[in-house]
């Protein structure tokens, strides 16, 4: 196993040797290089329960993951998604042949960094790296240390994108362990609106370390509906940073479903920058076998009159390990904030572990806040209710588990995304025969 310093060394000698865009100027806070930062260890509070062992065991950073031809398989998978514009990435790299966004490209809505016009370069330089402090997000710093490309989504003022835009990240089998990174900057000008569907899926077992960063800037009164499915196979490492700035009156709504993997880490860092903004974060995470999943949510209520509602559910079984850390930080001037955060978990195995920590830090005196976490087993009275109707205990347990998860999945706004999520859930619960036609009755 490598030491953290050897990991840095490896990155320096390999993946960070890629040519970077020469015109790109990151702000000072994001300019800290991966090499200069400390690799998280057990002593790092935000990584305490997520050891980097899987990352240190293989030479992921010694090469960029290759991108094999995946046409047929990928198309089959893409056919399950709703019609509409999509950007398809394989092992972190955007694949034009699988994507469909020419219209949006022609209108200047979607642009690759490498093909950005002078105005777009300005825009990228103005906003990229603004939404997070690199010091606290080491892997985002790694991601931004060598920026060869990226995707800019720019919505002009009051522009409404009619169909949902899809970002699809496929991992495909590779010869050797490899590193794939991707980044998206979404800049929504005042009053603009977008519905985004983000999916991570696998075309087979791959030794991939996918490092993804997305920054979202919603200017005043902009709206974003964001559906996220992270349903990849369990072998890979996926570290994902989502950093959001919310302008006055803006609205951000997320629905997320995520499965554990060798190491999966989701950071959501949300900054309220203008009054009367709202965020809803709905999420459900599942882990089984020896999977690991870590959810870190940080809500910075920096201004008055903003509301946030956060509900995450966890389903943890087998020998897996899950982490939830949700922090609401109310700054001194953020009066009249209403912020609520809750994490509810079903822990079904003696060998599984969940570490949950809701945090509330309040420096204003006129706010309504709540936070909570619960860990439970299946409800005996509910199990008896099923049994008293003739349903055997194993099927009753399975239906209750699915119900627990489905309560969140049912809230995904897009029907085809719900269907897709449920199909993946059925595979997750694949040993449960009785559940086959459960969803067809909805």
């Amino acid at each position: 196993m490598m030491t953290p310093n050897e990991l840095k060394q490896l990155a320096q000698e390999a993946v960070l040797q890629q040519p970077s865009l020469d015109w790109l100027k990151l702000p000072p806070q994001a300019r800290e290089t991966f090499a200069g930062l400390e690799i998280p260890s057990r002593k790092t509070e935000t990584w305490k329960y997520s050891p980097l062992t899987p990352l240190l065991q293989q030479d992921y950073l010694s090469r960029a993951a290759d991108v094999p031809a995946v046409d047929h398989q990928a198309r089959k998978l893409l056919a399950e998604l709703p019609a509409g514009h999509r950007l398809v990435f394989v092992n972190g790299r955007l694949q034009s042949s699988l994507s469909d966004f020419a219209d949006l490209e022609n209108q200047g809505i979607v642009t690759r960094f490498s093909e950005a016009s002078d105005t777009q370069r300005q825009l990228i330089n103005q906003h990229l790296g603004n939404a997070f402090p690199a010091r606290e997000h080491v892997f985002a710093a790694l991601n931004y240390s060598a920026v060869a490309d990226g995707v800019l989504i720019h919505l002009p003022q009051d522009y409404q994108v009619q169909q949902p835009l899809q970002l699809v990240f496929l991992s495909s089998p590779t010869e050797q362990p490899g590193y794939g990174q991707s980044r998206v900057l979404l800049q929504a000008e005042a009053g603009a609106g977008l519905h985004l569907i983000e999916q991570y899926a696998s075309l087979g077992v791959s030794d991939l370390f996918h490092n993804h960063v997305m920054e979202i800037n919603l200017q005043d009164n902009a709206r974003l509906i964001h559906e996220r499915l992270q349903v990849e196979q369990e072998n890979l490492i996926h570290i994902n940073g989502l950093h959001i700035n919310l302008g006055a009156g803006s609205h951000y709504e997320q629905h997320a479903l995520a499965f554990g993997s060798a190491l999966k880490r989701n950071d959501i860092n949300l900054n309220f920058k203008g009054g009367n903004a709202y965020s809803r974060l709905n999420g459900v995470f599942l882990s089984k076998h020896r999977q690991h999943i870590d959810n870190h949510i940080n809500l910075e209520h920096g201004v008055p009159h903003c509301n946030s509602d956060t509900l995450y559910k966890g389903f943890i079984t087998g020998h897996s390990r899950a982490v939830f850390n949700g922090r609401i930080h109310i700054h001194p001037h953020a009066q009249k904030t209403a912020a609520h955060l809750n994490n509810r978990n079903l822990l079904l195995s003696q060998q599984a572990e969940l570490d949950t920590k809701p945090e509330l830090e309040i420096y204003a005196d006129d706010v309504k806040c709540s936070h909570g976490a619960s860990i439970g087993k299946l409800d005996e009275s509910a199990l008896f209710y099923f049994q008293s109707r003739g349903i055997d205990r194993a099927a009753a347990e399975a239906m209750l588990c699915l119900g627990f998860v489905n309560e969140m999945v049912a809230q995904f706004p897009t029907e085809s995304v719900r269907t897709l999520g449920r199909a993946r859930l059925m595979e997750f619960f694949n040993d449960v025969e009785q559940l086959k036609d459960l969803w067809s009755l909805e």
Partner: protein
Amino acid sequence: MLEIKDLVATVEDKTILDGISLTVNPGEVHAIMGPNGSGKSTLANVLAGREPYAVAGGSVRYQGQDLLALAPEERARAGIFMAFQYPVEIPGVSNMQFLKAAVDAVRAHRGLDELDAPGFMKLAREECKKLKLKPEFLKRGVNEGFSGGEKKRNEILQMALLEPSLALLDETDSGLDIDALQVAAEGVNALRNAQRSFIVVTHYQRLLNYIVPDFVHVLAAGKIVKSGGRELALELEEKGYSWIE
């Protein structure tokens, strides 16, 4: 149909049923009345197989078999149905999914084919209509956010679909206004026939104006202290439970 002999049931070492004997023949409706804490709900729950009630003595034979040896789901498949006093809310599982799983399990036990989804939906919608429940009701989470009346009607709906031989109604009238009570009672009466038996557990005789029993038994401190015809219920209404205690 059902033969209970000297049944003793305890919960956490406390005796709740203290030697109950009761015979229910096909087609009969027996009302079990009694003050709070007399053990009447426990009787229904013990027959349905609910924990943590433990049987400490006596026997229960149902259609010739030892009922107490069966798991709750086996009792349900054999034709016993309990309408819950407090139906359980199960968010995330739709009422339709729940009903189909139950009907499939019971039909499989009876050697009948599984109903296909459209066929089942049609059947469920028809039964909903009889109980004055809107079809959307089937798409909601099981009992999730249902009013008291909706929960009780949902119990009757399940009973109608599962077609039990012996139905146990555990305080079906509690929490119901008079209109909801009538709808629920009509649902029960529609299911009465010469083969199907009912045990109706209630605190008030009001329900028995609508579901007219053949026999009334009064429970006090875990024993049947008086049995009679339906006139016994009226007498209780007039005199209160202190009269028999």
